[in-house]
């Protein structure tokens, strides 16, 4: 078995992407994300008035005019600080996973999707010629991903309207001479560190591609088993990071694999991380890198997030009494909660300050969970101030997204499930909307918005890259208002992202929305899972210590981006075989005189079912097989 890390990703927004080769002869692609943070090298659609005043009405000439202007500026300003004009002024192209295009799409047998973000690049793959892999994703993630992709397509439309019909061939900025003119910061994003990434840029898929992709996807319920080709049994278990996000177990006849994606121990909205179900596997692939940037923060003891050092020591020593599973689980769950609450409280207090000062707040949301939690916390605070500040959610999919969260009790956390069982709504936004404290609009230019508009206000809008959607317009409006506030998530390169809006008077709060998973916890978790082999990203090599003599030893392997790692085959080259008793009774035994050895020649038919080899009497089997292929008429999904 071989593991290739195509891209180690940047965290939640751009999860890592791997290929597992020869898993019982099959090739599995783990996630197919899209690097949306790379959009920051583009310039958003310029404000309309700039061109109307020039008397320019034709879109094509707008582009030409802009191109020339931009070229001149670049030449002039080389060596000076990066300016908004140094960005690429063209229709958006999207950066796919960097090494994926080197693989033949038809050679992939299975695609496993861990989260919504891990699915955004999938339409590029499903429309590729020869692609025929089976794609497995949880039902909730599939639904959310469809919404996200539709949103992306609709936001991208704005660019198409502005720049007109797409030119055939590569866009102008891809030309060698144009690339040379790019500023180094921008160029690095465009061509990658080693200059190999120019080929991964693609114009966005169409709505038809999205629909086509969704039809090729097979959705699974929580912990539902899918059997691929009778050989691999695949099961999703909640990872806690988002509604529908999951970790996968892959059970084959020879080896059981757990793929741990971005996981959160105690979620405030989604089903908790189900690590109990992941225990006892031969191989654990840990691909979550999200805590890495946060770890440095811990060391530098950032003011906004001070971590009680006691917690850490508690966790360190927890590995000693690891038999006490219950206690350990509790300790894994406990610390996150307080910290996340503190962080959100901090965000809320900042929001309040600017609202009180008469400014508006823009929150480019991307994490459904944060949107839902802030929608719960902010109104409570506003009420305490008796401030009449409306909350708007602006996105083409906002209404559907919020409606969807009210009908997935199977994927929300326990306390919210309890709410549902006692007849209350799981999330408070339903109430807010009926009380007209929360307004949901499909676009910034919708007539309903104009009639209800009121400032100051709190707006959740997409997109977090600050290049697409309503956010761009809102930033233009309030960019000069020193009382207004923009809340950005960690992981966005604020310097480049905010360039087109400079000079910016608006306050910007950049913080991590994610509960931090500290290394000792991860260490603890991995020890609990008791794998026979552990595979980690190489960044963790120095940071995690598995040489603790008290723990059971298991080999740890490290993978590197872009390299293929050979995983040792299972220790005994043997597989289990189940022989039907009817057949076993027919076997005629002979024995060797000298040794305690008996033998017989086998007969029958070997089949592969549910990841097990079974030897069945040939004819009887054929009969029962026929009777099982009947189709059943169904209606319910």
């Amino acid at each position, binding site marked *: 078995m071989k593991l290739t890390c195509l891209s180690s990703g940047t965290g939640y927004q751009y999860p890592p992407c791997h290929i597992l080769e020869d898993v019982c002869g099959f090739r599995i692609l783990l996630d197919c994300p899209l690097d949306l943070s790379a959009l920051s090298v583009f310039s958003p659609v310029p404000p309309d008035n700039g061109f109307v005043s020039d008397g320019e009405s034709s879109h094509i000439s707008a582009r030409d005019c802009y191109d020339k202007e931009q070229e001149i500026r670049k030449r002039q300003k080389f060596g000076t600080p990066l300016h908004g004009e140094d960005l690429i002024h063209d229709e958006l192209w999207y950066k796919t996973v960097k090494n994926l295009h080197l693989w033949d799409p038809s050679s992939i047998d299975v695609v496993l999707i861990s989260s919504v973000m891990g699915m955004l690049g999938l339409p590029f793959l499903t429309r590729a010629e020869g692609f025929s892999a089976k794609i497995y994703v949880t039902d909730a993630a599939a639904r959310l991903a469809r919404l996200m992709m539709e949103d992306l397509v609709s936001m991208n439309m704005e660019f198409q309207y502005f720049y007109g019909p797409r030119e055939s061939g590569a866009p102008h900025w891809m030309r060698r001479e144009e690339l040379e003119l790019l500023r180094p910061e921008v160029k690095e994003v465009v061509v990658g560190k080693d200059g190999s990434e120019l080929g991964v840029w693609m114009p966005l898929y169409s709505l038809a591609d999205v629909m086509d992709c969704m039809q090729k996807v097979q959705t699974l319920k929580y912990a539902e088993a899918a059997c691929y080709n009778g050989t691999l049994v695949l099961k999703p278990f909640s990872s806690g990071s988002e509604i529908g996000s999951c970790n996968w177990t892959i059970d084959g006849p020879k080896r059981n694999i757990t793929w741990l994606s971005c996981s959160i121990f105690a979620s405030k909205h989604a089903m908790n991380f189900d690590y109990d*179900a992941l225990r006892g596997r031969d191989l654990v692939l840990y691909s979550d890198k999200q805590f890495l940037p946060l770890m440095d923060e811990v060391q530098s003891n950032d003011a906004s997030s001070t971590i009680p050092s006691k917690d850490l020591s508690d966790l360190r020593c927890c590995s000693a009494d690891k038999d006490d599973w219950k206690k350990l689980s509790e300790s894994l769950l406990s610390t996150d909660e307080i910290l996340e609450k503190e962080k959100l409280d901090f965000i809320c207090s900042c929001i309040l300050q600017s609202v009180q000062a008469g400014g508006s707040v823009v929150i480019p949301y991307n994490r459904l969970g944060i949107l839902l939690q802030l929608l719960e916390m902010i109104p409570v605070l506003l009420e305490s101030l008796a401030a009449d500040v409306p909350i708007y959610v602006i996105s083409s999919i906002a209404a559907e997204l919020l409606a969807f969260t009210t009908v997935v009790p199977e994927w929300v956390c326990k306390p919210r499930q309890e709410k549902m069982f006692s007849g209350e709504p799981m999330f408070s936004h339903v109430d807010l909307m009926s009380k007209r404290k929360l307004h949901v609009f499909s676009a910034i230019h919708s007539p309903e918005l104009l009639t209800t508009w009121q400032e100051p206000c709190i707006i959740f809008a997409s997109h977090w890259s600050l290049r697409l959607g309503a956010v761009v317009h809102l930033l233009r409006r309030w960019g000069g208002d020193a009382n207004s506030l923009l809340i950005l998530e960690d992981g966005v390169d604020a310097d480049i992202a905010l360039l087109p809006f400079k000079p910016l008077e608006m306050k910007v709060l950049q913080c991590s929305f994610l509960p931090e998973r500290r290394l000792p916890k991860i260490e603890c978790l991995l020890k609990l899972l008791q794998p026979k082999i552990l595979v980690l990203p190489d960044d963790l090599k120095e940071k995690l210590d598995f040489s603790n003599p008290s723990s059971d030893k298991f080999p740890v392997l490290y993978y590197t981006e872009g390299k293929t790692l050979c995983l040792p085959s299972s220790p005994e080259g043997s597989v289990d075989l189940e022989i039907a008793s009817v057949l076993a009774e027919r076997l005629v035994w*002979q024995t060797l005189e*000298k040794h*305690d*050895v008996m033998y017989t020649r*086998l007969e029958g038919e070997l089949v592969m079912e549910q990841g097990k080899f*079974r030897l069945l009497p040939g004819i009887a089997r054929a009969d029962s097989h026929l009777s099982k292929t009947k189709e059943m008429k169904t*209606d*319910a999904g």
Partner: protein
Amino acid sequence: FLGINDPGFLLSRHRPLAISNCPTTSSDDLPLQPLAAGRWLRFLGKLLPVLRWPPQACPFLLLVEIRQSAPAMGIECLVLGAGQEIGKSCVIVTINGMRIMFDCGMHLGHSDEERYPDFSLIDGSLDCVVITHFHLDHIGALPYFTEVVGYNGPIYMTYPTKALAPLMLEDFLRISVGRGVEEKFTAEDISACMKKVTPIDLKQNIQVGKDLQIRAYYAGHVLGAAMVYAKVGDASMVYTGDYNMTPDRHLGAAQIDPLELDLVITESTYATTVRDSKYASERKFLKAVHDCVVAGGKVLIPTFALGRAQELFILLEDYWERMNLKVPIYFSSGLTKQANIYYKTLMSWTNKKIKDTIALQNAFNLKHVVSFDRSQINAPGPCVLFASPGMLSGGLSLEVFKQWAPSEVNLVMLPGHCVAGTIGHKLASGKLTKLYADNNSQIEIRCKNVNLSFSAHTDSKGIMDLLKFLSPKHAMLVHGEKPRMSILKKKIESEMGIKCYDPPNGGLVKIPSATVHVKAQTSDSFAKSCQSPNFSLSRCSTSGAVLSTDLASPLTVTDDRVGEAILFVDGGKARGVHKDELELELIVSGEGKPQVVLFGHCFPIRSKNLTNATGRLGLSGSRSLLKVLALELSHLFPQVDVQNMGDFLQVGSFILSVCTNASCTRRSSEVPGDPSTTCTYFCCSWCMEDEKLALAIISSVRNSL
């Protein structure tokens, strides 16, 4: 070679299922307690003549294995309720030692001890309880069982069942209290009981303990109804609960995967009825309601708050929208309002059509249906009222009925089956003309009434369809009326050729588990060679001439992949290897000394051909036979050297001789056909490198003689 022709051997060494499945060995005979040494020895004594093991193998190993897997192999069903009746569904199933309770219902037709299942019949502890849906005859006894009887193991039910069951139970308790009946559990018991419930999703794999696996499938019937699949070791079964094989207004049809099952326990409410399409009764329903309200009458629809009511809401809402009717539709209880909230959240458990509306408008946001106030009973003008309870068995529905019954423009719509003894039943059968009101004055019943079957149960065709789809090895009927069940039982037994049971309450059914497997290990190359095709083509003709160019003889394709494997039993471990690995395997087991592997085969030839062949040459005896063969073979295989050594023929390492040993170990189990003709056995052996040649020679010998 020393032959052991004892099929029991392998089984006894590795998985003593075969022994414990013997009809003579009930679980009583098996040594379960370590103290009963005498019984151990007696048991050993019984086994010893049957079993043989190599001298080094430890007999205790065998016994320990038996002890572990001995208790009640196969499936045992104890019916505590709904056996040959409808009500208090409760079946205890023991699968390979794991004990599950399916449903824990109460009987609404009884108010005495008979109301609850007789839990005292449960012998030992339960591993889990699974509830299929929220109807009282499936869940009614659960609070009593957990809070009063004291069960505190895991309880599983689907999300909607967990959400809606407390509504049903509390409503039931309220009505009982209203009637002055004391129930065996309280409202606190209900909430305490529901806290212990683990909600599950459809198709979610639940692991209970180490061995038991359960999984729920969509059953239609009511929101959240499930069929439950349970598996322990090799034995598996499905308990259907109540199900519906046709979709209705708000629910889909039952849906299950093809599974390999030992037993299916199915409901049989409509064991003999085949129902018409639902659309006919829907049309009839809408027409009756429409005619009544247009004429200015009031329509009373007595239903229970959950299930049927929501289906009819959607039906009427849709119709009102299309016909642009303004007549108000009321529902009476707060329960229904509450239920509608749950139905909105649990959208994903309805049918696809409703699910797809979620993007635009939740289908359970009803525009025309509003809640009812008691003061509106005598308000003028037409209306439609849904009032609980169903069957006019009391409460508001009866109160309203008494008010509305005297007017002939009004209509009472009974959307389902009414239990004997209720006013609804009397009304439906046309026997009700007068009714005593509270003040002892009589009320003339003049209103119209319509009884329509909107049943959410499957009919007999649906039951047969499901059983045929699952094709289990055994079937069992519960939740039905005795005479109809026995008709269905006969039908199942004759049509499907499987055993079907319909035990009464308290009845015990034992089913041997047939899908057992023996575990062995195999090498990689065995698995690989089995997966790649290994076709061999041969033209076999009955005439005897193998190489004749007779085109009429059928070309047969054989693909004997598994036949290339050898199964070893070495020191208690069974291991399958490919023949190419054989020598290596023997070197390991033979202390490193290289071994020569010989393959052997001993096969019979019927004498008729034989005597013909020898008679032609005027020879007799085995030597003469071999002479004939040698001649034949050298003719057929000119490329090899066939040597006749007198007592045997030799071609390379292939040796063929006439076998006189009746207990020859190389003899295969095939039976020589015609007993009237004597048969001669040929015994051959060869080394691996000559395998192809050997097989060719054997087949040609068989065909030519």
